[in-house]
């Protein structure tokens, strides 16, 4: 109890900002995995839905317009990944809202750190969780028939894509978290995500749809996120598959991060 501390000079540099962002991401990831009650449902329910779909819709694969697949499970792998990542992203954003609610965010703001780094660190944690989810879904479903045509390379791209999708959705949800400072409000967006997922090509190809449902699926960004990964699973590597799996989520991600950062600036400016 008699230690004398040595003073430390702090300065803001790119290297330090990177280290701070990494530390925030590390904290966010640890915090997520230390809450089994939150992690469990976002891992188990998508697998449950995949198993339910595989057992209930196996004959749907012979419908006109349905792509050539080995099994319905193979078709639904991409949807399982996106579904899990969407739900996981809500968890990360709700944790950010809790940080704001309970004052931990103020502790971070009291440090001489980049405000952007604080947010990006939290979002990076969501991305890591999303990538882990994607890897877990692939590892669990592949042995049961969800074969990936583009093999391990494709699986790696899917994992990367899962991380980017998590970052994109996590950023949008974080904007809600920053705006409302309410974990309940963030959790309240869950039904909206579920509706978006339901009105997309996640569970059935767009070619088998008609009317309003088809029109919504055509403009629903979730359709494109799922289809990029699905092409990697069903067809193999192609420019189109890579564009859909990586570039489309990246573009959405950039816009979403800008929205979240703007929301943060607005919040800080209003203090």
């Amino acid at each position, binding site marked *: 109890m008699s230690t004398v501390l040595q003073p430390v000079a702090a300065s803001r540099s790119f290297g330090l900002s990177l280290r701070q962002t990494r530390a925030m991401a590390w904290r966010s990831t*640890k915090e997520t995995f230390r809450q089994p009650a939150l992690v469990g449902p976002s891992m188990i329910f998508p697998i449950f839905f995949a198993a339910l779909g595989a057992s209930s819709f196996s004959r749907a694969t012979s419908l006109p317009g349905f792509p050539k697949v080995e099994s319905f499970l193979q078709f639904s792998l991409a949807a399982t990944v996106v579904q899990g990542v969407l739900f996981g992203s809500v968890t990360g954003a709700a944790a950010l809202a809790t940080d704001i609610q309970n004052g931990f965010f103020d502790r971070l703001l009291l440090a001489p750190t980049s405000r952007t780094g604080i947010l990006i660190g939290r979002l990076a944690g969501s991305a890591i969780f999303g990538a882990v989810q994607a890897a877990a879904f692939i590892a669990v479903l592949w042995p049961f028939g969800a074969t990936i045509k583009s093999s391990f390379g494709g699986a790696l791209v899917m994992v990367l894509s899962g991380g980017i999708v998590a970052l994109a959705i996590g950023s949008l949800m974080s904007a809600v978290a920053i705006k409302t400072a309410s974990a309940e409000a963030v959790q309240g967006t869950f039904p909206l995500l579920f509706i978006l997922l339901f009105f997309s090509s996640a569970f059935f190809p767009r070619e088998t749809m008609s009317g309003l449902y088809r029109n919504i699926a055509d403009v629903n960004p979730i359709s494109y996120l799922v289809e990029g990964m699905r092409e990697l699973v069903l067809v193999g590597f192609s420019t189109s598959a890579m564009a859909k799996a990586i570039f489309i989520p990246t573009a959405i991600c950039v816009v979403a991060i800008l929205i979240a950062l703007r929301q943060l600036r607005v919040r800080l400016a209003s203090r």
Partner: protein
Amino acid sequence: MTNSPSNSPILAENLTRHFGEVKAVDGIDMQVNAGEIFGFLGPNGAGKSTAVRMLTTLLRPTAGRAIVAGFDVATHPDEVRRRIGVALQDAAIDPLMTGSELLQLQAVLYGIPSSQTKSRTAELLERVGLTAAGDRRVGTYSGGMRRRLDLALSLIHQPTVLFLDEPTTGLDPMSRLTLWEEVRRLNREGTTVLLTTQYLEEADQLADRIAIIDKGKIVREGKPQDLKAEVGFPTLIVNVQKDHQDAARSVLLQFGELRPTAEGTLGVGLRDGAQVVTDVVRKLDEAHVHLIHLEINEPSLDDVFADATGHRLEGDKS
């Protein structure tokens, strides 16, 4: 220990913060000298925390200015942040992380080199007596342990100015004494401390100087003993039967001015000192006032507060 305004660790001029129509802090002026413990005393909602949030760069002032550790909080917030330590009210600490992990995160946020992070963490855990609990999640800590960890977090970068916002609220007496001792030790080592409190005893015991804040304004400022001396007379508090209160009030007024006291009691500042108590009792008896209880108090900070605001701090505490 008096500083010129230019080298005061904390200097506020007309510091003001409004939330809509509410004047949370209403033009306060204050100067904290290097190496002193300065207490901000006031009830809930008086404006203490808002003032601290402005001084620590978390809130922008609506008007006025504040210089902390030599830098303007509005124009050089990062320079201020590098030099101050802050333990906010309610010890907002992530319950899912361990004490060690939070200290290491804090070290990174303050730019402490990786090579020093572990040793600094160990030093601080030892300093606040949490070495054994360092690898436990904070969610398992008691209130006192959380406060000590909060203090350790605020010290990670060896700040020259330390802000403690109600550091002992909700703590048991033993934890409170432990924290007081740590604050005194930090102060002896040269750290300037500004603490807010709603506890009279805490302000009296710890602070070299105090400012009493009420409804956003500083209503008294000075050394506790000087402020108490200004109030002067001891307070006689009597508890009488309800239907004898008017008669008792008439008697008490002969010995001094009535003072605000807890409901159901009457208080008078004895202008001729405590030696007239027997006279008061005799007069009350002659007036056929049935006395239930009587006590005499030397001037306290609560008397100072009551003298300045017209109401008592202790009666306001939730």
